[in-house]
């Protein structure tokens, strides 16, 4: 997505102007992606409820906001963002990360098949379980997906820092966005590379998601490894200057 890095992630509808001159120059952030839109363009408001609110119920600020939007140019909405009630930004991001060669149709169908596979597996477990256990079995594939990714997010990361001619792996705090990205990236890489060639992606992915949901499996193990490395290199923390 061609947008400055400082903007908020995952399709949240904040309305801060992306004025380039107001970008803060952090050492950690360099602006690598430039937007074709000039700074006065506003983000499109996809939320249906925003538009359906009757005029009488708006506060003064909201009324001002609406009036302002009438005069300012608005960017085109992305074709993948819908105003559907079933839309989930995390799922969309994951689908985009799974996509290869721009084949969104395939990526989306894999995602839906994965969710269906997770659901069917959980239903099977549900019917096999006794009535006490049935209350503990989660059958909603979306909650499982979100929880699994949350369980895979590392708390602290490592950055290679050049000091004295050598690169040291220094423990470094990660932003929310970076953590979510790492969780999804690890999940997808694990499924693509470490599994048998002939297993299909929905099958692999549903298995990994269910394992991560229960805090088991290779992706959570990788997160723990990352934490252990960070703990081991604790002494190098001073090399970080931001």
């Amino acid at each position, binding site marked *: 997505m061609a947008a400055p890095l400082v903007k908020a992630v995952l399709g949240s509808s904040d309305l801060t102007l992306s004025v380039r001159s107001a970008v803060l120059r952090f050492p950690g952030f360099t602006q690598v992606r430039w937007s074709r839109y000039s700074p006065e363009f506003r983000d499109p408001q996809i939320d249906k409820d925003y538009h359906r609110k009757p005029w009488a119920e708006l506060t003064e600020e909201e009324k001002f906001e609406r009036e302002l939007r009438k005069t300012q140019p608005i960017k085109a909405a992305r074709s993948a963002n819908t105003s*559907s009630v*079933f839309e989930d930004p995390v799922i969309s991001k994951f689908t985009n990360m799974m996509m290869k060669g721009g084949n969104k149709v395939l990526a989306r169908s894999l995602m839906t098949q994965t969710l269906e596979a997770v*659901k069917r597996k959980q*239903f*099977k477990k549900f019917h096999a379980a006794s009535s006490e256990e049935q209350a503990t079995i989660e059958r*909603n*594939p*979306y909650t499982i997906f979100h929880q699994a990714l949350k369980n895979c997010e590392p708390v602290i990361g490592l950055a290679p820092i050049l000091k004295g001619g050598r690169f040291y792996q220094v423990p470094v705090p990660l932003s929310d966005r970076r953590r979510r990205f790492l969780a999804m990236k690890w999940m997808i890489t694990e499924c693509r590379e470490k599994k048998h060639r002939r297993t299909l992606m929905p099958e692999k992915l549903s298995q990994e998601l269910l394992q991560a949901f229960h805090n088991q499996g290779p992706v959570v193990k990788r997160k723990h490894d990352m934490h252990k490395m960070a703990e081991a290199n604790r002494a190098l923390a001073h090399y970080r200057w931001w």
Partner: protein
Amino acid sequence: MTGAPRQPRAEERRNDLGPKASPGGSTHRVRGRGPAMRVQGSGEEGTAATRLLRFPGSTADPSRLSRGGRRGSGLAETGERRRERRGAKAGETKGSSGRPFHFFKSVGTMLKGVTRLVSRVHKLDPGHFLRLGTQAPQSLAAHLDNQVSFESPRAISCTSENDPAKHEEKHEGQHYNLPLQDMKTIFPHGLPPRYAMQMKTFNEACLMVRKPALELLHYLKNTNFAHPAVRYVLYGEKGTGKTLSLCHIIHFCAKQDWLILHIPDAHLWVKDCRDLLQSSYNKQRFDQPLEASVWLKNFKTTNERFLNQIKIQEKYVWNKRESIEKGSSLGEVVEQGITRVRNATDAVGIVLKELKRQSSLGIFHLLVAVDGVNALWGRTTLKREDKSPIAAEELALIHNLRKMVKNDWNGGAIVMTLSQTGSLFKPRKAYLPQELLGKEGFDALDPFIPILVGNYNPKEFESCIQYYLENSWLQHEKAHTEEGKKELLFLSNGNPGQLERLCAYL
């Protein structure tokens, strides 16, 4: 009955129903209310009492009573209505004129009634309406007509009438249960793969009763077995439910003790065949041993009991050493076909010939059910060793099946389905008989009774969604709301196949 409901009271009620009730005005909160109502009935007398105290004798808002009783708004209201029918209690007002102060004055008299009421409510369970649904006692039916909002969801989407012979117009849109044991015998093959997955997931097999199937059932019930077999063709766009309607018919005929000759998908016989043998019976034709033996195995599972009763009327010679005498049972022919795979195709041919010959004798009624009948007159993707294409009539199985589908025999019926899904060299949008069968096929099948199978109408759609909700198949929180349902309707356009695929990942 009552005047316009008071807005504040309606708000109160919505807030009262707990976290699952959305203030956005959606009253379709059946799932959310179910467990809450059961909990209420099982003895939280305090909350039930206060709830009733707030709206004594108030019936459901007319504004919320729109088409179709899908608001399972609960047993508290049923109890209320029953109380009304028994006669208004002191201090109870019907409807709009009640003010908070009046409630508290008559608390004493009301509480007595409420405790009695709650114990009655406790006895009612959702199954109560299921049992009532088919018998429809007069008073309750009259009330149901007026206040549809308290029908339980099971009464709308499911019916207890599990015998297809008794299905009528009133069951339209409702699901009926097929016992899983029957499914194994009647449908060893022939169910659509997604439906089989659904059966496995839900641990139950439910089919919706729809108009095309009801029409066909009516015709079949009035068949005259002395006349030549009538041909019925189910046609429609992709995903509308032709195969499942056929399954409904097959279930009916199996229950009526007909002999079922079910070819699950004729397209499978005209493509992807690894081993084609030159037929020993006729040098110009080709045998398909694998397909034929698989079909014979499934045929045996379905029609076990008939195989010993039917005796063949001719001697058949398999090869120099083996032959089968006149008067031996059909079961032996089938066994021969299953064990000697080389002769399977010929065994199938014999079975079809004998059944056709003997169906007019009246020992059994014969149902020929072919799914994807347009394969019989289409092209094949099979080739000879010299890469020249094989026409459909050069396959022995297809040749025999064509003879079976001709209406020169009596004592049964022929029900067929057209299908573009597995078809070869046909455009995706084609669904009409003329387009799929071609000139040759149409002339061969002419005259036939065409039955169009269409998308869900609003009632059927609602029933389908209810069924999914009951089985907790729709797990997404937004799927329970009106917005979600409208979106599902829009995305699927009422197409049953599409709806099923959509709901699978929601």
